[in-house]
C-alpha cells in the first residue's frame, strides 16, 4: 500500500496520532536541549559531513585498509554483494560453529537483509535482544523506528504481549516491571547463546576495529558471552581514523535521544582468547547509490533517527506507513534507490519543510533529495492520469498570461457562486475537511490595471 493510504489508516485513531506525535516530539525536544549545549555544534556537523564525504570518495581503498588491519587483528572478514549473500555467509559461519541459538543486537542491516526469517527457516533460534526489538519481534512486526523500534506500541500493549509470551503478571503497563522481566528473560538467552550477531556503528580503517553503541548493554552481553561474534556492516559504516570517532560519538547520541553519549560505546579490535570474531561487509545497493551524485550523500547517514523524530509527517503517520526497512525522511531517499516503483510514494510523503536536513548530524540534504527523487519518479513510474494531465495543463497555462487570467476568472466565479455542496464534493479532496477561499470579484491583476487607468 502507498504511504498516503497507510497514513490515512493510521489517522483513523486521532488520539493515537496525538500520542505518537508527542512521544517523538519529546525526543526531538531532548535533542534540542542537548545540541544547544554544545559549543561549535554546527562546526561539528560540518566535520561529520565532510569526513563522510571524504570517506566515500576513497571508500574502496579504506575498505582494503580496514580489511588488512582487521585480518591482522585476528578478525575474519567476509564480503556480501547483497542480502542473500549476507544471509548465506552468516548461516555458514553459524553452521561451522554448530550454533543453533543466536542473540542479536540492533542492526538495521540485518533487517534490510531479512536475516531472521532466513535463519529461522533453517531451525536456528534468533532472539533480538534490544528491548524495543524484542517487543516487535514478539509482536511479529518490523521496527517502526530505527532507534526506538517499538515507539508505536503503548505500555499496555507491551504488558499484554509479555503476559502472552513471557508469562508475566498483569502490571497495568508498568515499564519498570516489564523491563526487569525482559532482563530476566533475555539474561537466560544470553547465557545459552551459541553465537552473537551485532551491527556496527563505525568501522575504522586505520585500526581494523569497529564500534557498537547501545544503551542497554545488549550488544556486549551477547558478544562477550557467546564464543562467536558476527558483526554485520554496510560499506558506508567506514571512517578513516580513530580520531574521527571523536566527532561522530559526539554527534550520534545527542541527535538520537538527547543523551551526551550512549551508555556503552564498545570498541572491538581483537577477539578475546578462545572467541571468534567475524565481520560481514555488505553492499546491497550501496555502491549503486554511491554512483548517483544527487543521492550519494544519503550514505553519510549514521542512523540516529533525528530526521524521524522531527518529521511532522513521520510523527503523524507512524513508521509502518513507510513500508520500508528504514522509515521516515532518510528512508524515503534511500528506499527509491532500491525499488523505485515499490517506494514511489515515499518522496511525496513530505512537505519539503526541510527540518530533516537541519537536524541531520551529518548534514544530508534530505529534503533536496526528496525533491530530486520526485522528478525521477514521475518520469519512470506510472502516475495517476489526472495528476499528470493537470501538471502538463498548468505548465502550459502559466506560459500564457491572458489565458491564465481567463481561467482564473472562471475559477473565482465558481468559488463565489457555486454551492459549497458542489465545490466540496469529490473529486475535490481539499474540500473534505477544508473550505476553499471565497472567489474575489477582482484578481490583483484586474485591480492593478483598473488603478493604472485612473
Amino acid at each position, binding site marked *: 500500500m502507498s504511504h498516503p493510504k497507510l497514513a490515512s489508516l493510521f489517522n483513523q485513531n486521532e488520539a493515537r496520532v496525538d500520542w505518537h506525535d508527542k512521544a517523538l516530539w519529546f525526543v526531538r525536544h531532548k535533542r534540542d536541549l542537548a545540541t544547544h549545549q554544545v559549543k561549535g555544534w554546527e562546526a561539528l556537523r560540518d566535520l561529520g559531513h565532510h569526513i563522510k564525504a571524504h570517506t566515500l570518495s576513497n571508500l574502496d581503498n579504506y575498505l582494503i585498509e580496514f580489511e588488512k588491519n582487521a585480518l591482522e587483528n585476528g578478525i575474519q572478514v567476509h564480503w556480501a554483494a547483497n542480502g542473500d549473500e549476507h544471509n548465506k555467509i552468516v548461516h555458514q559461519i553459524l553452521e561451522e560453529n554448530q550454533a543453533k541459538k543466536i542473540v542479536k543486537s540492533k542492526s538495521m542491516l540485518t533487517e534490510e537483509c531479512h536475516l531472521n526469517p532466513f535463519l529461522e527457516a533453517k531451525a536456528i533460534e534468533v532472539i533480538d535482544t534490544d528491548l524495543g526489538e524484542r517487543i516487535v519481534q514478539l509482536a511479529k512486526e518490523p521496527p517502526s523506528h530505527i532507534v526506538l523500534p517499538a515507539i508505536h506500541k503503548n505500555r499496555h500493549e507491551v504488558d499484554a504481549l509479555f503476559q502472552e509470551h513471557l508469562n508475566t503478571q498483569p502490571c497495568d503497563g508498568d515499564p519498570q516491571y516489564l523491563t526487569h522481566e525482559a532482563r530476566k528473560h533475555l539474561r537466560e538467552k544470553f547465557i545459552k547463546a551459541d553465537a552473537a550477531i551485532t551491527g556496527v556503528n563505525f568501522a575504522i580503517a586505520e585500526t581494523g576495529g569497529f564500534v557498537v553503541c547501545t544503551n542497554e548493554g545488549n550488544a556486549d552481553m551477547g558478544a562477550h558471552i557467546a564464543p562467536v561474534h558476527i558483526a554485520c556492516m554496510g560499506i558506508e559504516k567506514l571512517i578513516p581514523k580513530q580520531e574521527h570517532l571523536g566527532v561522530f560519538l559526539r554527534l550520534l547520541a545527542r541527535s538520537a535521544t538527547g543523551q551526551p553519549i550512549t551508555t556503552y560505546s564498545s570498541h572491538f579490535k581483537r577477539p578475546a582468547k578462545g572467541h571468534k570474531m567475524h565481520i560481514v561487509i555488505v553492499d546491497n545497493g550501496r555502491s549503486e547509490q554511491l554512483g548517483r551524485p544527487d543521492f550519494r550523500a544519503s550514505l553519510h547517514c549514521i542512523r540516529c533517527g533525528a530526521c524521524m523524530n522531527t518529521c511532522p509527517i513521520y510523527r503523524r503517520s507512524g513508521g509502518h506507513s513507510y513500508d520500508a526497512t528504514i522509515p521516515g525522511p532518510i528512508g524515503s531517499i534511500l528506499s527509491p534507490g532500491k525499488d523505485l516503483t515499490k517506494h514511489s510514494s515515499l518522496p511525496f510523503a513530505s512537505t519539503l519543510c526541510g527540518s530533516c536536513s537541519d537536524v541531520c548530524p551529518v548534514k544530508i540534504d534530505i529534503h533536496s533529495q526528496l525533491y530530486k527523487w520526485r*522528478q525521477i519518479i514521475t518520469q519512470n513510474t506510472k502516475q495517476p492520469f489526472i495528476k499528470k494531465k493537470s501538471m502538463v495543463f498548468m505548465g502550459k497555462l*502559466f506560459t500564457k498570461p491572458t489565458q491564465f487570467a481567463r481561467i482564473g476568472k472562471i475559477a473565482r466565479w465558481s468559488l463565489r457562486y457555486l454551492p459549497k455542496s458542489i465545490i466540496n464534493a469529490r473529486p475535490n479532496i481539499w474540500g473534505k475537511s477544508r*473550505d476553499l477561499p471565497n472567489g474575489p470579484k477582482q*484578481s490583483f491583476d*484586474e485591480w492593478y490595471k483598473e488603478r493604472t487607468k485612473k
Partner: protein
Amino acid sequence: MTVGLFIPCYINQLYPQVGIATLELLEKLNVDVVYPSGQTCCGQPMANSGYENESVGTCQNFVENFKDFDYIVTPSGSCAYHVKKHYNILEQTPNVTKVRNNVHELCEFIVNVLKVTNIGAYFPYKVGIHKSCHGLRGLRLGSCSELVGDHYSYIEDLLKEVSDIELMPLQRADECCGFGGTFAVAEEAVSVKMGKDKIKDHLESGVEVITATDTSCLMHLEGLINRNKQPLKVMHVAEILNTNLTKLKSD
C-alpha cells in the same frame, strides 16, 4: 529604486488583498514599484509535484518578466525560494542568474535592503506568527529551532514595531503547517492533521490572528478554521504592516 513586484498566481486570483497590501506598503516606503503584467507563476506547483520539466516555460516566462529589475520583491518566501533554489533547470544565462540573485521575500527586503523595521503600523490584536518553512529553512528568514545559533527573525523585527500588537509564543515555534502544495491533497489525512495541530497551538496561546510570510500556508489553515468555525483569523504579514495606511486612506 525600482522594484519588480511578483504576485504569486494564487494570491493574484484568490487573495488580491495581499497583493494590494504589498504594493501599498512598498509605495509607502518610497519604493518605485512596477508590476509586470505578463507574469503568472514561479513554476513551483509543477516542480514540487515532480514535474519540473513541465515548469520550464513558466520559469522562462518569470525570467522574461523580471530580468530588467535589480530587485524583485514578492509576498511569498516559498516562491522566492523556488526561484533561487530550483531555477537551475534553466540554462544559466546572465538573465536567469540575475533573476535568481535579485529575488527577495517582502520582509527580508524591507529589513535588509530598505533597512527599515518601523513602518508605523497599528494592529491591536494578539498575533501568532506562522514561520512558513520554505522562507524559514530555505531562505533563512529567521533562526531555525533545529540549528544552534543566535535568534533572529525578519518578520518578528517588523511586527515587534507595530503599535499595540501582542506577539504570542507557540509551543512549537516553527513546525510545518502541512500545506506543502499538492501534498495537501496527495496526503490529505496527514496534511489536515498537521493543520489542525498548528491551529490548536495558536488557539492555546490565545492568538486572535495568525500571520505569515506565505499565504499558501494561511489558505490551508483558513480552510480548516472556517470549516471548523474556530475563533481565528488569518492575515498575510503585508496586510498587518499595511493596516495603519489603509485606515488613513479611508479616513
